[in-house]
């Protein structure tokens, strides 16, 4: 009996296995996409740009030595009416299977984001199996293609560099799944990292004789603000900080305040951690918000000569710090609320949490409600450490 079962199993397996190996793709047949960019072409079609890894450059060991000698990536683009169509056109040029599983960033061109919106792009990346939910979404100031064409001096490819920049949380980091959440929620409008191509330092000695050429590098350039799924404006890096503090998202940054006794000289304080609490109130006519920001920071530099290591001075500094934070947060708020009129802070969500009945009416025109909402910002700042020094050295004592 057992024998016959075994034989039957064997026959089944052999027949099915002989049928073919369906999803099998050898690594050497894969074109591993590290970054993808989507632009709008002149005729209104979509221009898909891929940054594809060249595995030969990634071999460890003596023979590899890829960087410097050969480029680690290959950038190629094609047009199409939809993203999958452009991908199919690309497949005609790429002799391997286009593999999305390790795509790190998705860059949207400014034009595309403004005119067509993200909707026609991101759906593909969510529906497809290969691209992952935690792809970082970026908006390039300018063309996404230009962004992908740069290369990095530290990382092998610019896509990886951008990925690491995102992971370092230097800007408002948004993954695809978070973007999707912001897109479907009425209580928050999308905002994603804005990036640009910048000149970043030099690598000496590359061209014999002559000055070293400037490096084109990827860099974070603030935040892109969306209304529904269309780009409507930017926040610069300075405003982005204020925006992040308001959202309570990444409580980092350096605050520059004037010295208590010598206002023309500056003191730098680095924010270590913090908390933001949004307290909505509703009186039946318009919503009000009280935003409580609590931050802790360390003093990292002083240009002033005075001794700041006294409780009184620290107290003064804390007040300065609080007002500076408040100013920056207000700047971001004013720009978003006044100029763009979209709720990228998630005030709507906070409102929803507290006033769920009222929200059912307000949610359909929330952006207008948000524009006329009164927002009060209260900052409580605290200085914890002053580094390894008490007083500034290098000045002779009187």
């Amino acid at each position, binding site marked *: *009996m057992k024998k*016959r*079962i075994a034989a*039957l199993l064997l*026959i*089944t397996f052999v*027949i099915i296995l002989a049928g073919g190996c369906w999803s099998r793709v050898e690594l050497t047949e894969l074109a591993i996409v590290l970054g993808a960019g989507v632009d709008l072409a002149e005729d209104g079609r979509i221009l898909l740009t891929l940054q594809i890894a060249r595995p030969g450059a990634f071999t460890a060991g003596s023979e590899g030595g890829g960087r410097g000698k050969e480029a680690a990536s290959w950038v190629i683009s094609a047009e199409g009416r939809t993203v999958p169509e452009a991908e199919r056109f690309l497949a005609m040029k790429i002799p391997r299977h286009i593999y999305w599983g390790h795509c790190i960033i998705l860059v949207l061109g400014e034009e595309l984001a403004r005119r067509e919106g993200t909707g026609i792009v991101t759906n593909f990346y969510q529906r497809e199996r290969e691209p992952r939910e935690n792809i970082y979404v970026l908006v390039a100031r300018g063309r996404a293609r230009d962004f992908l064409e740069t290369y990095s001096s530290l990382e092998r490819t610019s896509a990886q560099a951008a990925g690491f920049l995102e992971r370092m949380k230097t800007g408002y980091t948004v993954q695809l799944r978070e973007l999707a959440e912001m897109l479907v929620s009425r209580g928050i409008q999308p905002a994603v990292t804005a990036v640009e191509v910048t000149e970043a330092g030099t690598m000496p000695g590359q061209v014999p004789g002559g000055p070293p050429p400037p490096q084109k590098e990827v860099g974070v350039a603030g935040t892109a603000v969306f209304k529904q799924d269309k780009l409507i404006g930017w926040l610069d890096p300075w405003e982005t900080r204020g925006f992040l503090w308001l959202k309570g998202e990444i409580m980092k940054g350096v605050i520059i305040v004037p010295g208590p006794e010598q206002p023309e000289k500056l003191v730098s304080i680095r924010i270590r951690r913090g908390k933001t609490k949004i307290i909505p109130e509703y009186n039946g006519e318009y919503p009000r918000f009280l935003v409580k920001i609590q931050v802790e920071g360390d003093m990292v530099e002083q240009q002033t000569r005075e001794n700041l290591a006294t409780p009184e001075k620290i107290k003064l500094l804390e007040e300065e710090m609080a007002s500076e934070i408040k100013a920056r947060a207000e700047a971001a708020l004013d720009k978003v609320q006044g100029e763009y009129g979209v709720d990228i802070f998630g005030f709507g969500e906070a409102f929803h949490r507290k006033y769920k009945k009222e929200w059912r009416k307000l949610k359909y025109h929330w952006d207008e409600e948000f524009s006329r909402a009164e927002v009060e910002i209260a900052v409580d700042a605290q200085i914890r450490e002053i580094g390894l020094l008490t007083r500034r050295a290098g000045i002779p004592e009187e």
Partner: protein
Amino acid sequence: MIVLLIILFAGIILLEVPGLVKKKMWRELAAFAAYLAIGMALSIPQALGIRLPNPSKAIEALFKPVAELLK
């Protein structure tokens, strides 16, 4: 496809029938044959590319009034 199916059916029959006949389990043999017949009736047309009605559709229609509540 159809060849595979026939091999499969032949395999199943070879696996079970001799034992049943030897042990004179006629009742079991009849049940076996009935099930296999149903299986053939359902699978061979599909292998030939004929679309059979899905019983789920009938059940869906049957429970439609109740199901509407859940939409």
